[in-house]
C-alpha cells in the first residue's frame, strides 16, 4: 500500500499547488476575497448538485465490483469490434509521436493535470456570485460518471495496450509504475469504453469556453489541458480512438443535459440563498 499512498500524496501536493496558483492567477485575489463572503450560502444553494454527484460517486465506489461481474457475464464483448473498427490507430500515434519528453508530459497530464482540471472548476465557479454554473458543472460531472458507469457495465472491452502489446507500449506504466497502484485502485482495465478521462476533461473544457466571459484566462488553460488529456489517453495506450470519440459525445451530451436540467432561475442571488427564490430569468447566456 506504500506506493499507493505516495502516489496519492503527490497527487494532493500537485493539485493543491496548482489550485493555489490558478486561484490567484485566474480568479484573482480581489474576487477571491469577495467570493469568500457568501461561500456557505452558495454551497447550500448547490447542495442538490453536490448530493447528486456524491450519490453517483458512492454508487460507483460500492457497486463497481458487482457491476464488473455483470459486465463480464452479460456485457457486449466489444474489444474485437473496436479493434476491427480502428485497427492500429493508437499504435500509429505512439510510433509517430512518441518522445521521452512528450511521454513525461502526457503522463503528468494524465494523472496530475487531469486531477487539477477537474478540481479547479469547482473552486472557480464557487467563487462566482451566482451558483448556476457550479451546479451545472456538478450535475455534468455526475452525468459523466453515471452514464459512464452504465456504459462500462454494458460494454466489456480491453484497451489497446492490453490487445496489441507488441505495438502499443503501456507508456504510463512503464514510465511510472507507481501510478498503476492508483489507477488500479480507482478503475479496472476493462472499463475503457467510453474514456471518462476524455469526457470529464472535455466537459471542463466546454464549460471553460462557455464561461470565457467570467474567466478569460482559464479558457485557454482548460482547453489546452483537456486536449492534452484527450491525447494522453491514446498516446499512453490506455484508450482506443473509439473510446475517445464516445468520450466527446458523452461530454457534450452531459453539458447539454446539465444546461437543460439546471434552471438558472432557481439560483440564489442572495448570499443567504432562500430556497423559494423565484427571481425572474435574468441570465443572459441561458441556452435552453
Amino acid at each position: 500500500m506504500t506506493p499507493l499512498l505516495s502516489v496519492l500524496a503527490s497527487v494532493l501536493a500537485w493539485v493543491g499547488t496548482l489550485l493555489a496558483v490558478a486561484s490567484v492567477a485566474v480568479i484573482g485575489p480581489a474576487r477571491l476575497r469577495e467570493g469568500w463572503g457568501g461561500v456557505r450560502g452558495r454551497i447550500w444553494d448547490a447542495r442538490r448538485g453536490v448530493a447528486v454527484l456524491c450519490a453517483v460517486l458512492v454508487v460507483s465506489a460500492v457497486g463497481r465490483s458487482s457491476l464488473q461481474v455483470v459486465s463480464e457475464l452479460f456485457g457486449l464483448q466489444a474489444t474485437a469490434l473496436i479493434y476491427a473498427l480502428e485497427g492500429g490507430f493508437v499504435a500509429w500515434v505512439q510510433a509517430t509521436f512518441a518522445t521521452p519528453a512528450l511521454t513525461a508530459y502526457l503522463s503528468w497530464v494524465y494523472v496530475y493535470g487531469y486531477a487539477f482540471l477537474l478540481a479547479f472548476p469547482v473552486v472557480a465557479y464557487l467563487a462566482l456570485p451566482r451558483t448556476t454554473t457550479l451546479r451545472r458543472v456538478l450535475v455534468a460531472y455526475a452525468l459523466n460518471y453515471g452514464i459512464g458507469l452504465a456504459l462500462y457495465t454494458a460494454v466489456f472491452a480491453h484497451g489497446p495496450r492490453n490487445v496489441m502489446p507488441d505495438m502499443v507500449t503501456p507508456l504510463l506504466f512503464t514510465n511510472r509504475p507507481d501510478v498503476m497502484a492508483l489507477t488500479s485502485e480507482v478503475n479496472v482495465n476493462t472499463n475503457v469504453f467510453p474514456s471518462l478521462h476524455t469526457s470529464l476533461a472535455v466537459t471542463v473544457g466546454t464549460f471553460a469556453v462557455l464561461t470565457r466571459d467570467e474567466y478569460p484566462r482559464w479558457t485557454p488553460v482548460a482547453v489546452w489541458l483537456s486536449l492534452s488529456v484527450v491525447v494522453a489517453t491514446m498516446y499512453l495506450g490506455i484508450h482506443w480512438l473509439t473510446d475517445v470519440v464516445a468520450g466527446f459525445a458523452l461530454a457534450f451530451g452531459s453539458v447539454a443535459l446539465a444546461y437543460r436540467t439546471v434552471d438558472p432561475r432557481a439560483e440564489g442571488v442572495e448570499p443567504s440563498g432562500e430556497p423559494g427564490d423565484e427571481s425572474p430569468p435574468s441570465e443572459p447566456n441561458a441556452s435552453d
Partner: protein
Amino acid sequence: MTRPISRRAALAGLGLAAASAGCLGRTENIAGRNPREQLTLEINATPADADPNGIRIARQLEEHLTAVGVDVRLNTVGQTDLWRKVLINQNFDLYVGQFVETEPFDPDALYGLTHSRFVAESGWQNPFGLTEMAVDDLLDRQRRATGRDRDDAVAALQETVCELQPFSVVAFPDALTAVQENRFDGWTADRQPLSVTGLLGLDPVAAGSGDGGAATNASTGGNETAADADADGAAGDAADSTGEALRLVTTDDRITENWNPIAAEYRKYGTFTGLLYDPLARADGDEVFPWLAADWERVDETTLDVSLRDARWHDGEPVTASDVAFTYEFLRDTSLGNVETPVPAPRFRGRSSLVEGARVRDDATVRLTVPDVNETVAARALRVPILPEHVWSERAHAATIAGFELDFETTEAVVSNNPDPVGSGPLRFAEATAGESVAFERNPDHFLVRSASEDDSDAVDEPADPRAGIPLRYHGKPAFDRLRIDVLPSDISAVETVAEGLADATVSNLGPESVPRIGRSADTRLVSGRSAAFYHVGYNVRRSPLSNPRFRAVIARLIDKAAVVDDAFDGYAQAATSPLAASPTEIPESVTWADGSDPIHPFFDDDGSLDVEAARAALRDIGYRFDDEGRLLSRGR
C-alpha cells in the same frame, strides 16, 4: 454474362429480372444459391495485463490470418471467462492459452486432452472436440503397453496428434519469476520455482545456507543418510521458529475468490489448491513418491492397495480410506448419481478415468480397481487431490441459483467457490479479500512437520516415521508460517513490488516489458525453470472449417514460432512441435523442433515474414477459394 457482378448489383436487378417473363425459373436458380462469404474466425486470448505473452501469440496469428484473407476477430477476455468460454461452454473458434500442468508430465496427460470418449463432457477433457479413432487407439495402447512398446505407442501418438493438430503447440515458456533472495532461498532448484514442490522446497535464509545446501545436494543425489536427515530436521525446526511469511504477487486474482480444486475456469496450474489438498502420491521429475499414501502395492493386474498415512483434515476430522474411495467416485460423477447424466469433474478427468472402482478395506487402506495399465500410468491415478467426504458429499446436488434448479447440467460441487476450504495439505486457508489478496497458513498438524522422534522416541523402523518415503527436502516444510498472495494490476507492477522488497516473488507470467526491470534492482534476481505448460493455439474441431485437419495444418503453418519466442518471450521460451517436448519421454525426430523450424508444419517463411502467396496456394490446394479481393471464402457456418 461472364463478367462477375457484385451481389448488391445482382439484388438490385433482381426485381427487374424477375419481372421479365420467361426467365423466372433461372432467376430462382441463381437467387436460391447462398452466396459465399468471407470466412470469419474469432481468436480468444487474455489481455496483456493478465498474460503478457499469450496475447502476443494471438496478435501474430491475427495478423497472419488477416493477411491470407480471413476476417479475424481478436477478442480479449479475462482468464476465468476464457476458460468458461473454451472449457465449459465450448463456444469458441480459436484460443491462445497454456496447458494446465507446469511440471513435466507423462504422455498419459494427452489421454484426457484428446480422447474422444470425453467429447460430450466439459472441462479440460478434450476441449477441442477431437474424435479420431487413430488417436484413441494410441492413447489406449500407451496405457497398456510397457517398455519399448509404450515408447513406440507414445512416439506414434505424438506424430498422429501433431499431424492432426487439434491444437498447435507454439512454445514451452521458461517459468520466470522475479525473486527477492534475502529471506528465502532454494529458488534455483532444477524444478519449477513456483510449483507445489518448488514452494515446499524453499529454505529460509536465516537457517544458514550451509544446512540448506547440504540438504539440497543430498536430495538431488538421492542418498538419504541419517546425518543429512538431522541437518535437515534442524533446518526445519529453525523454520518453525522464524515465523516468516512468504509474500507472493500475481496478476491472477482467481485464487482470492475461489479455492475449488476441480473448478477448471478458476485454476491455472492448481499450485495453491495443490498445497491445500494432498494427493496420494506426488511426482517430482521422474520420481514418484507416496504423499498422503504411506505406500501402495499392486495386488494383481487390476488391483492396487493403497495404505494411508495418519492425517487429519483442516477441521480436525481424520482422513480415512472412505474419503479416498469417495474422491474417485466423486471425480467420475460429482452428482454421485443424484443427476440423471453423470457430471464428471472438469479437472483430473484423464487420471480419474483410470480408477474404475474404489473399495474401503479398513480405515487406512483402500483398494483401487485400475484396469490393465502399466505402472507409470497407474501411479498417475494416485495424483488427484483427495477431498473430504463430509464436505463434498453435501455438494452433490444439482446446482441452483437462489433455490431454483436451472438446467445447467452441473452440480454444486463444480460451481462452488469452496469457501473456507477444508483440505489435508501442508497449508490451510487463513483469509482472503476477493480481488485483492489471500493468505494461507502452515498446517501444524501436517505429516511433513511431524517428526519421527516426537511420535516414537525409539525410532525403530521406517513405518514409524510419519514422513517415510518422502524426500528429505520436504521434511519440516514449508519453510514459512504464512503464504500471502497479493493481486497487482500487471507484470510490471509485480516486478516493481518485488524489487522494492515488498514481496518475495512473482507468481504470474512475466512479459518482455517487465523482465528487463528485474536486473535493475540489486537484491532482485530472475529465476527461471523450464515449464511444461506449453502455449498453444486450440481449435474448436467441432466447427467448420476448423473440423478439417488440412485447414488446421495451414493455420499451424501461419504461426511463426521462432518469432514468437524472440518477440513475445524475449527469448525465454523454446519453440516446439510436440506437446511432450518438455516431458521425460523420447521425442521422435519427426516431431522434434530442429534448426529453427517445425518439421511437420513449417511456417510459411519468406525471409522472416509471412509468405502470403505460399499460404494462399496451400489453401487453394486443399480446396479453399478466394474472391477477387483476396478474401478467403467459406460457406456460412
